[in-house]
């Protein structure tokens, strides 16, 4: 009888202990890569994670801008049950850090040598209080100008190297009955064009002072007025139906020759390649007139979670994300370039290689700048205040001097 009882106790104890055995790294990841190429890219990461012994729990929340995902994240964090990692970028990382909910990745970063592998400005975005808390996935370039090669050849034009050249090219195209600039009238698209114009007209230092440091003298300066003047000129180069148009419909206008140029980030390249066009032959890509490079870096921020397997999952995820194979596969599918310096680019197309080369040059001479329109330079409230002024000016007949005054007032008022 005693032996039977001892036997039962021993068996039960073994089962209880077996339940708490370390199950392997696991990660619950919140993201909004739910469409086409993005979903394929996310699947590549899942495959690699699981090939390394991890368990991936997917938490996709659809909605291209990430609004719904951020809502879900807020709810999870408020209830004390944060996911292991979430797709957060730019100053939002530091904003979440100030709420005290992010984890420390410095051990992985030191082991993998991230300080040497990432450009300095990008590495700084990934740090919270000097220690790494997020892993960068890719680098999107925002200040691209795309053109229909055929239309340009017929008009006898080259890719413009200055805004004055762009203006005269646009006037030639207007004379030929072609829409010079394909544009979608949504606030973020207006902001995208605005920041490329600001970079081109004012230069990298002006851009940094105005949109990263929020220096009031720069924001209220004559250079800023000149930027708004150029925006007013650009307004006459878009077709009357541009309001509310989606960005990919504007790209379609360039693809089928209705319009000549589009100013949009490198995700537009995906539209061209999906339509079977090849870079250099059917469509041309160049940096918008002016020096500098505006980047938009997607990243995974790691949250402070409990449990050995979750923490191991975070470290494995961070290591894989900056690893060479993931950086290559993901970025090939998404149309961006690797954040990791030195990734071999032989499989990438001509525009991507150009982008990577420009990024290295810009990083070297200090003109590698975060995009304000895509949430890299400023917090949401401040970026939104600037965008309100920009989109109001573009869609009305506001004078440039009034726009500058409104800009200064809006930035002062945003917390």
């Amino acid at each position, binding site marked *: 009888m005693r032996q039977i009882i001892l036997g039962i106790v021993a068996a039960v104890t073994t089962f209880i202990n077996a339940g708490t055995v370390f199950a392997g790294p696991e990660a619950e990841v919140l993201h909004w890569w739910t469409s086409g190429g993005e979903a394929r890219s996310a699947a590549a990461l899942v495959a690699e994670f699981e090939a390394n012994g991890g368990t991936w729990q997917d938490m996709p929340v659809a909605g291209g*801008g990430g*609004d719904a995902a*951020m*809502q879900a994240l*807020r709810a999870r*964090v*408020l209830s004390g049950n944060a996911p292991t990692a979430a797709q957060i970028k730019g100053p*939002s990382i530091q*904003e*979440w850090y100030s*709420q005290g909910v992010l984890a420390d990745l410095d051990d992985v970063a030191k082991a993998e040598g991230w300080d040497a592998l990432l450009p300095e400005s990008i590495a700084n975005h990934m740090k919270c209080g000097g220690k790494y808390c997020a892993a960068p996935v890719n680098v999107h370039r925002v200040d691209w100008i795309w053109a229909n090669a055929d239309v340009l050849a017929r008009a006898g034009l080259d890719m413009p190297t200055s805004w004055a050249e762009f203006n005269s090219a646009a006037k030639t195209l207007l004379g030929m009955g072609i829409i010079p600039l394909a544009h979608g*009238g*949504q*606030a973020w698209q*207006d902001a995208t064009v605005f920041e490329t114009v600001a970079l081109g007209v004012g230069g990298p230092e002006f851009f940094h002072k105005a949109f990263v440091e929020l220096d009031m003298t720069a924001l209220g300066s004559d250079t800023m007025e000149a930027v708004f003047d150029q925006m007013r000129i650009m307004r006459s180069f878009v077709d*009357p*139906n*541009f*309001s*509310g148009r989606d960005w990919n419909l504007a790209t379609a206008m360039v693809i089928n020759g209705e319009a000549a140029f589009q100013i949009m980030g490198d995700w537009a390249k995906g539209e061209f390649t999906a339509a079977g066009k090849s870079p250099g032959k059917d469509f041309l890509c160049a940096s918008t007139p002016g020096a500098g490079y505006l980047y938009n870096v997607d990243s995974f921020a790691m949250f402070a979670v409990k449990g050995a397997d979750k923490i191991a999952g975070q470290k494995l995820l961070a290591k894989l994300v900056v690893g060479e194979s993931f950086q290559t596969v993901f970025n090939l599918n998404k149309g961006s370039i690797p954040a990791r310096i030195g990734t071999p680019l032989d499989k990438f197309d001509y525009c991507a290689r150009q982008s990577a080369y420009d990024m290295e040059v810009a990083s070297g001479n200090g003109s590698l700048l975060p995009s304000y329109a895509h949430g890299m330079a400023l*917090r*949401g*409230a401040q*970026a*939104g205040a600037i965008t*309100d002024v920009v*989109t*109001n000016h*573009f*869609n*009305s007949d506001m004078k440039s001097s009034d726009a500058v005054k*409104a800009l200064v*007032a*809006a930035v002062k*008022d*945003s*917390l």
Partner: protein
Amino acid sequence: MFTRFEKQIPKIVLAPSFSAVLIFVYAFMAWTVYIAFTKSTIMPMYKLNGVLQFGRLSRSPRWETAIENLFIFGILFIAISTVLGLLLAILLDQRIRSEGALRSIFLYPMALSFIVTGTAWKWILNPGTGIEAFVRSWGFSSFKFDWLVNPDFAIYTIVIAGVWQSAGFVMALFLAGLRSVNQEIIYAAMVDGISTRRIYTKIILPSMAPVFMSAVIVLSHLAIKSFDLVVALTGGGPGYQTDLPATFMYAMAFSRGDLGQAAASATVMLMTVVAIIVPYLYSELRSKNG
């Protein structure tokens, strides 16, 4: 003892819903008003900071546009829907043949969601693919109807889509009201030789005052709630010219992580609604007790 318990049954049955409403509506309203006095950004902060959010709100040009739009849209939407609904109801009341079918046709738009209405009207009003292109294809090459993309007129397109959706519902309300007027008074008036127009304006319409009240209340709640219609039709309009307080609040809270500002705008919206409803409730309760 049992009958005393029986008397309490209605209260017991209602208690769960009542407490749910008390918590999930009123307690959270109070929470929002509290947040409006803080400096919350992406997550709520609970340290009170005075009225700085309301100051920021009053200086925001976008909020000014939103409030202006609320008044333009609200007044036009309620007035035109009421007039159109009344007209349709009077016309349908003339004992015509296919009244049932016509009533269903007019009432049908109410069954659609505002998103469907907004998207359909966006295509209809788009200058390149809608009415303007259509009329131009008939040969009127200088016809212009580009309100949708015009910053000054875009708000009126929202009025058009909203009226199309709700006029049928108002018509149904008024039709019921017209049918409930006492026929003997009408016959007496006709015997006295009063013209039909005066019968309507002096007898029938005044007796339908409660129906007018219901129609205005329903329409004003639809107007204040108007969010999905704006998002589908203009996405906030050229720039932010068709922004309404509801879309402003959504943008501040969820797209921008500016919870304090969103809560302040929600509080202002609440005050607007309270300013309309409280006098009405007061007059209703007074007339019951008086």
